[in-house]
């Protein structure tokens, strides 16, 4: 507990000297705040698609000791036909991730070859990259505006041919470094996609997004994720994030 108080003090201190932060530093801190909070954690997610369908999953995350790599375990609890389906991801920012998939009804574990990270996450309006984070080196960042409460950073891809957007802007809270909104413009500069963190709650001293929405303005669809049962520092073991645990979901997800 003490450690966490110290950590938040550091963040608070950082906030007081915010004027000197560069765009890259802001984005790096935002990346930490949204994807690396705590040493590990778990959350139960209800994913509501605008077409009326919903999905229920549990996500486990564990940070590697190097502070860069991460492991994810995504376990489906519903709807009934995909119950027990699971994904495993070993994330290596800057390199290809390792991904596996388990389909219980086919009794099948399959490795997924590295591919485009800007594809839909299980058919929702969130992209794989929204869930696991985008490499910091992939864009150039520019601080375009600083308000009383937020930084506004414009990000432009270094390799424009590799992504579907032209640029995006992120609104980052000054005190928590949680990105509150990201607006994606297409290559003609037209807004077509918005991702927002609509509800934030402090859990175990860590500001945490508990509701987020992704909207696709072109197709008119949207997806809302609601997070609950969020826990940090639960002592997840590395071995949970292995292929064999796909077939045998660990108690952290089945409970």
């Amino acid at each position, binding site marked *: 507990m003490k450690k966490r108080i110290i950590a938040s003090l550091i963040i608070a201190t950082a906030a007081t000297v915010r004027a000197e932060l560069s765009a890259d530093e802001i984005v790096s801190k935002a990346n930490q705040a949204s994807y690396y909070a705590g040493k590990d954690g778990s959350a139960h997610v209800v994913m509501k698609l605008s077409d009326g369908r919903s999905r229920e999953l549990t996500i486990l995350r564990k940070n590697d000791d190097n502070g860069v790599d991460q492991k994810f375990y995504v376990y489906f609890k519903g709807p*009934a036909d995909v119950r027990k389906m699971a994904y495993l991801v070993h994330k290596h920012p800057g390199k290809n991730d390792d991904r596996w998939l388990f389909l219980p009804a*086919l009794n099948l574990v399959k490795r*997924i070859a590295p591919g485009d990270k800007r594809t839909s996450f299980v058919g929702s309006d969130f992209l794989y990259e929204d869930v696991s984070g985008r490499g910091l080196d992939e864009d150039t960042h520019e601080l375009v505006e600083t308000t009383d409460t937020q930084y506004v950073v414009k990000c432009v891809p270094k390799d424009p041919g590799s992504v579907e957007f032209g640029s995006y802007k992120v609104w980052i809270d000054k005190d928590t470094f949680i990105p509150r909104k990201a607006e994606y413009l297409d*290559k*003609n500069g037209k807004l077509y996609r918005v991702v927002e963190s609509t509800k934030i709650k402090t859990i175990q001293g860590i500001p945490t997004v508990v509701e987020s929405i992704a909207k696709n303005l072109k197709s008119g669809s949207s997806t809302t994720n609601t997070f609950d049962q969020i826990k940090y520092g639960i002592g997840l073991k590395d071995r949970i994030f292995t292929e064999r645990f796909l077939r045998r979901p660990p*108690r952290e997800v089945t409970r």
Partner: protein
Amino acid sequence: MKRLGMTNFSIRYPWVVLGLVLAITVFFGMQFPKVHFDNDPENMLSKDEFVRVFHHETKQKFGLYDFVIVGIVNEKNPDGIFNVETLRHVDTLTQQLLSLRPGSDGLPQVASDKAQTDWQTLDLSPKGGFQRIMGKVFGHDPNRLFDEEGNSAIIGRELISPSVVDNIKQADQGSLKMEYLMEHVPQTREQALVIRDDAMNNPLYKGTLVSEDAKAICIYIPITEKTYSYNVATLVRELTRDWNNGDKIYIAGLPVAEDTFGVEMLVQMAISAPMAMLILFLLMYFFFRRVSLILAPLLLAVVTVVWTMGLLIGLGFDVHIMSSMIPIFIMPITVCNSIHVLSEFFDSYRIYHNKAETLRHVVKELFMPMLFATTTTIAGFASLATTPIPPVRVFGLHVAFGVAVGWLLTMTFVPAFIQLFISEKSLQRLPTSDQQSDEHANGLLPRFLKRVGEFTYSHSRSVVWTTVAILAISVYGISLINVNDNPVKWFTKNHELRIADRVLNNHFGGTYTAYLTLAPEGGGTTTFDEAAFEKKMEQAKAEDKKNIQPWEELSDTINYLDDPALQSLETFRAALPGAPAELFRGLENLSGEDLRDAALDFCDQKTQTSAVEKLLAQKTELTAPVFKRPDVLRWVGRLQAHLLEQGKVGKTSSAVDAIKKASYELNYVKGSQDNDRFFSIPDSAAACGQVYMQLEGMKKKDTLFHLVTRDFQEANIWVQLTSGDNQDMESVVASVDQFVKNNPPPVPLKVRWAGLTYLNVVWQNKMVTGMLYGSLASSYLVVFIMMVFLFRSGLFGVLAMLPLTVTITFIYGLIGWVGKDYDMPVAILSAMTLGLSVDFAIHFLERGREMYKSSKDWKEANARMFREPAKAISRNAIVIALGFLPLLFAPLVPYRTVGFFLAMIMLTSWLATLLILPALVRLLEKRLFK
């Protein structure tokens, strides 16, 4: 005399009449700028027509759009289109289409690279001055590719092209790769061939995106509205103009055909109508030799067209394929009336030598036959108002209006015109009676007519028997008639769209799309007894608590054992006090993770029998939505197989194909003999659901939902036909009905069709049956009653109907015999036949009766009939038949059909009138003139 009232007024106050006509013409002419064109054959059905509503619901439900299909064919390269350069072309075109945006000047701009840095501005305006003017006149802007907000007409995210369609394939270390079929443009032949193999191995692409012979590829460009398709086609032609490595571009699809037809139809109108006018002018000049005289009927035709089209536009109707033909129908009919007047005027002027007197005589003479000829024509066209097709109703009523106007103007405008602009002097110079009778005796036409007259008198019986024989043969011909239509066939054989149609349908599964939709009867809600389930669940839970839970807890403990506990079986056993002995059996020589794995495997065997899991799995199967059920999906697979056997269907695509392919790739094990077995529907609804989930997470989101609804309760089979003929579509529909009847689906399903190809079948059927049984039959009856009334004799009535009966029977018999399809234009023309061919009969019989009155002998009356009256009829027939011959050279088939028909109608009813009527009058002389 009352019937002379209008004419007298016109003779007395010609300026008033002329001024009035001019004023009304200006009024109607002022409506023209409001014109709005509508090229969409879909509007042949009224907006609330069930199939049309259903078609749009289906499009919405499955996110379907109208496509412009771009075929790229390479016959030169041994690898077909799968060579580096062609694939680069395909990718560049794809990027260009995706990037389409309006520039600051409104002209379209495209970028050729993925990063969209290299922009180029295009101007799609035609190079030729004539086309430019036509475009201006008809308000067609070739650069119109955006909506008012500047959004592209192309729906980029739904584009189907190798660069942007998903593929699922095996990659390194038994992993599965999901990327675009042509994720990167190939640099080497080997890479190009990999793309070929990937495409051929995907049932969703083979035969649709790429041809099975690898020589052709199709890009499907979805557009927001059908009316963009002509411009999108122009854009593609412009973007591919500099391709020179043997790649050929073909553009196809019903939307393009329909839109192109609309555009070309207007141009055609602008050429054909004046051309017809010119020929009418020349022919009349040939007969009457007075420009000032024949100006009247020509002006009359123009004025009538302006009034009618002005009315149409003023009333707010769109100019549709049908209504664009109004001028072509009105002109011959109105000219017909004026020719009668002119002929009579010429012949009578020699007697009266006074314009006014001559006019009075002419009108007196012709009033009744013309009135009846006009009213019968009006009846024929107005009867179209009874058809269930809105544009045909509009067409029929407006032509009827035009014919009425034409008659009115003949009675008023023509006399006024003659009064004002033709001097008595110029008329004095007309050939004298003597000269006239010389000409009458020696001219080609008079000599021919004289002989015809004599022939009908001497060979009356053989004329009748020949007619009977022709009728019999024709009736048989009618039984051979093929009711069939296809908008692509509205273009002539060498039109680029027809060529594209042939080429692409030769290489692919077909460019004609229909959607076969399947939905459960009653919405697919399954009744599931929740209460009973809960009860069973409680039992199961209790059971599991006893049998399963201890093993689950045990395996959980094993999972979290630390390394020291796994050193040997002893340490392991010690770490698990109270564990059943059977767990440790056979684990003697193991340690570390191997030991843990082996122990866990044993636990797994024990927990597999969980009653709760079993119940949950059962529930999943029982409550699964229809199109997650393996039995239903397999049935769909069989239906698709049946469709392919049917012959006209080149290719079908459904969620079943997507599942099979995904299942195959997911289960694929390198070197296994078993792989092919997995190209199938998995065995449970849960398994299908899980495979679907993988398809949902593909690179291109939502592709799956073109084939199945998001709740998986309804499915759509994309059926591609190699022919857009009604008959072929109908045979496919019948074949599906038959299959469903013989192989009932596992759950009752509503099987319904949508798609443009199917829509065309519906309206064309309505048109044919509506025309044939509705309007043609009823107007035939109406005309007959009018004839009886006109001649005050049933027998004369029957006689008057004969030429038209023979004409219709003969012409439709001919269509049957030569095998021409009975299509939309043919159907419309039946109304025309009725109105035109009764004309001659009325004139002949009415005049014949007059002549008989004075001579009391048919032989003499007959000889006189074959002078003036026969000449007027013949002039009419020749002018109209020849006047519309230019239509035969039109690039659009319906215009050719109209041209050919007009000539045939004229020729046949002319012959029928001049041969059959006099022959029958001779035979029935006594009974007719009691």
